[in-house]
């Protein structure tokens, strides 16, 4: 029994045609609108490395690689997604009244096709049931405030699946009574429907068909408007994901060799500094808005959000999408609305970001949240000059005294007193001490420990001494790109003057900026975090470290672990016996110091470092090991605030304490 007959004297295909034109037309119009909006964005050079991109598309889009990082929800989604890929051609068959299957029969592929479609519907059905169970029974915390939209969509999908099986079964019942073994679930349905009267069956099958087609048409209309826009957006998003090392910020202007244009040559008359208009974003930054599935994984890992600040990374992406949709018509005429991007994002949210990249790391569809915030910061600092007052001091100090605290530059090498260290001489390695390690009492002892260990192991190294300046990271993350560029250019000259291209640093921010971002300014160096070198020396037996008794937990610095990709070396260096916090390694929770936040005021009841300090304290470890001067300050502060007296020590300090000195 089939639904392909006349209704009220009109052939079924006329009704379908009208509906198809309407639904498909609306869909294409809306998709076209979104595509035109995204094309308003600036250029973003991602049309390279095609082989790699195709591979990534296969693993990430087709293979759902990042989606399944969340086991329950991820696999549920994967089932629905793969299922739909398998069943999608069924709509062609249903839309042509069975002609598609007839064609396949000619080339004897109808059987296998039917099976694939059935399995597809079944997989999707199981996925939907799991998803509904999660939403309605388990009710996880993160979904608490979501609307009923999600559940309704799932129920609609379920409707499509069930009606499909009913139609399948319908084909097997009636005069023919021919069960199709290639459609096993259809057969199950058919068996259940056997006892129904012919007239009722006819109604059921007709209804199912039209419900099925109406739901599909409805989806076509709804997809561009809701979180389902990710069906469109994820394709360019995954295909054109960022191939730069994670966390790398881009210069204001690049030349034909993709190197930064020198600060003297920057064309300020024609340069937009940062983002304040929708069209200041690149197309790839804009496509993020329509790739978002509202899964809230970014929200869950964001330290700012966890500490109750205004910033919610998912909201930023929604803001972008909504801004585009709301002002779309105006934007497409080439005009700009009164409301600016900064106003929509909210400056409070913009300044709350620590640039820890947990959001970008967690996102299954490769959305890049952080650059949107650092780009708006560039506008706020360099054009609007509206930024937290504390940063004015920071910028002035960096410019004048080349360190964030404005202390006398000539005192930079004072920490070396008593140690016989090469200053300003060529050597195999350059130990880039960093500002905290040079000026902050607590961190000076880390520099000393590192230097002593390196000497003990016979490593030939030198420091820059007074020539060393801040690498510029705080200026860059705070949005003062011009100041950063001037510092970077000067630093590259200074480092190059020593001739050494191998750099060791105890600060992950130096590690990241010098190692990954200085390249564009002419500085290509091999940069090592001190934990990597110390680990290597330990393995080579150039440093003999006694095993130590007390239990240690290691707080992975964001710029070393997640952004830097190094989680093993610090652990091995510490002897491997670490009590891990739940959020460790690449999933480490930020100490709250990055993104120049260590220089900004933070509300007392919204302290990121207290959250992390509590987590560290609860491991029961006797000592908290860190590998970054910011983490050192933030964790020490945090522990003090929660009343925990356990020590915070750098890896180098722990190794030095347990060093077996060669006699």
């Amino acid at each position, binding site marked *: 029994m089939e639904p392909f007959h006349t209704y009220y004297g009109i052939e079924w295909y006329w009704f379908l045609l009208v509906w198809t034109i309407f639904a498909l037309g609306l869909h294409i119009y809306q998709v076209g609108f979104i595509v035109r909006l995204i094309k308003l964005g600036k250029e973003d050079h991602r049309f390279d490395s095609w082989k790699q991109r195709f591979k990534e598309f296969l693993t990430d889009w087709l293979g759902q690689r990042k989606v399944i990082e969340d086991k329950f929800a991820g696999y549920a989604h994967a089932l629905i997604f793969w299922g739909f890929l398998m069943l999608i051609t069924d709509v062609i068959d249903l839309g042509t009244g069975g002609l598609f299957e007839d064609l396949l029969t000619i080339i004897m592929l109808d059987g296998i096709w039917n099976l694939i479609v059935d399995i597809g519907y079944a997989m999707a059905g199981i996925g939907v049931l799991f998803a509904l169970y999660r939403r309605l029974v388990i009710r996880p915390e993160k979904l608490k405030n979501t609307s009923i939209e999600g559940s309704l969509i799932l129920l609609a999908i379920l409707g499509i699946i069930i009606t499909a099986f009913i139609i399948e079964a319908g084909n097997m019942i009636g005069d023919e009574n021919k069960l199709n073994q290639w459609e096993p679930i259809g057969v199950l349905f058919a068996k259940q429907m056997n006892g129904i009267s012919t007239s009722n069956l006819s109604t059921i099958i007709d209804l199912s068909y039209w419900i099925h087609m109406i739901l599909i048409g409805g989806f076509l209309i709804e997809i561009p408007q809701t979180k389902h826009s990710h069906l469109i957006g994820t394709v360019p998003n995954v295909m054109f994901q960022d191939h730069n090392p994670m966390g790398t910020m881009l210069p204001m202007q690049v030349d034909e060799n993709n190197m930064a244009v020198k600060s003297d040559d920057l064309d*300020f008359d024609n340069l937009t*500094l940062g983002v304040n208009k929708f069209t200041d974003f690149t197309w790839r930054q804009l496509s993020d808005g329509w790739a978002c599935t509202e899964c809230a994984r970014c929200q869950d890992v964001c330290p700012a959000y966890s500490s109750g600040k205004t910033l919610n990374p998912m909201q930023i992406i929604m803001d972008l999408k909504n801004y585009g949709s709301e002002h779309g018509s105006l934007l497409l005429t080439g005009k700009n609305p009164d409301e600016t991007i900064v106003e929509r994002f909210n400056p409070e949210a913009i300044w709350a970001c620590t640039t820890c990249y947990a959001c970008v790391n967690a996102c299954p569809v490769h959305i890049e949240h952080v650059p949107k915030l650092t780009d708006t910061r560039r506008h706020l600092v*360099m*054009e*609007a*000059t509206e*930024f937290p007052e504390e940063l*004015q001091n920071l*910028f002035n100090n960096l410019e*004048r*005294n080349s360190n964030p605290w*404005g*202390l*006398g*530059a*000539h005192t930079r090498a004072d920490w070396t007193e008593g140690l016989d260290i090469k200053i300003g001489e060529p050597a195999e390695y350059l130990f880039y001490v960093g500002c905290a390690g040079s000026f902050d009492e607590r961190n000076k002892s880390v520099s000393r420990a590192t230097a002593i260990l390196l000497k003990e192991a016979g490593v030939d190294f030198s420091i820059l001494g007074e020539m060393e300046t801040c690498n510029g990271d705080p200026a860059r993350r705070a949005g003062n790109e*011009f100041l950063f560029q001037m510092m970077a250019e000067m630093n590259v000259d200074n480092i190059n003057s020593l001739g050494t291209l191998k750099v060791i640093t105890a600060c992950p921010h130096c590690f990241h900026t010098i190692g990954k971002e200085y390249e564009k300014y002419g500085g290509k160096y091999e940069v090592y975090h001190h934990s990597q070198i110390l680990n290597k020396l330990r393995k080579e037996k150039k440093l003999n470290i006694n095993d130590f008794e007390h239990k240690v937990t290691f707080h992975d610095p964001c710029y070393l672990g997640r952004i830097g990709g190094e989680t093993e070396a610090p652990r091995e260096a510490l002897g491997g016996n670490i009590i891990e916090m739940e959020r460790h390694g690449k999933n480490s929770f930020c100490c709250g110091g990055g993104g120049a936040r260590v220089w900004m005021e933070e509300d007392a009841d919204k302290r990121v470092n207290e959250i992390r300090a509590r987590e560290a304290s609860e491991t029961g470890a006797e000592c908290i090991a860190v590998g970054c001067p910011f983490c050192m300050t933030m964790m020490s502060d945090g522990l003090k605030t929660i009343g925990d007296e356990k020590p915070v020590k750098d890896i180098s300090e722990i190794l030095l304490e347990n060093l077996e000195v060669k006699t």
Partner: protein
Amino acid sequence: MNIAVLIKMVPDTESKLEIVNGKLEESNFKYMVNPYDEFAVEQAVQFKEAVGGKVTLVSLFTDNNTIDTDLRKMIAIGADEVIVLRSKDYRGDKPSTNAEILAKKVKELNADLVLCGVQGIDYYQAATGPMLAQKLDIPNISGVTKLELNDNLITAHRQMEGGIQVIESQMPILISCQKDMTKVRFPALKDIMMSKRKPFENQTVDYEEEADIKQIECTLPPARGGGMIIEGETPEEKVDKLINILKMEAKVL
């Protein structure tokens, strides 16, 4: 309204301070705009924005060109022009000489209002402003924490011990600005770039020494050893020692 702002270029007090042969070694100094003068620039620009007019910056310095970037930042805040009087004999500790040279220039400008910082962070004499006012035969108010302009009257809040003296006056007048008189704006990058196109005049002048007293020698105060821990058996003993040191040695009590 015609406003003249005096700018002194001063060495960063965080610079390395070395005494050679009883004299301060100045060859390695990096110079910056005296922070107190920045308040004067900002205030002048605010007045210009309110009532219109011109803000001219006047500075006196050696022929050292490294100061040009910092002076341009002052233009970027909103000044119209900078005039730098240059003499290789210039010294920051000669207020009479400097006031005389600056006064000649300021007189040419026919300013209604002359603004400057209350003191330079190098020599802390707070002298150039009042001296210049005397030489121009105009009144002056020093250490102003708030300045208002109403028609042709200025109202100044002058800081004095334990209070604020509120003074009204007509112009012309010289006002020297105290810290936090206003909030100095952070110039936008574009404004800093634009400032490169504004007039920047260098003028050589003769440095005829006036009545300034020559210094005999410079010394460094006893080094901050970073920690004399005061010993004592009882709190009373320690406190006694501390008070004694603070009175006799440090002379701060």
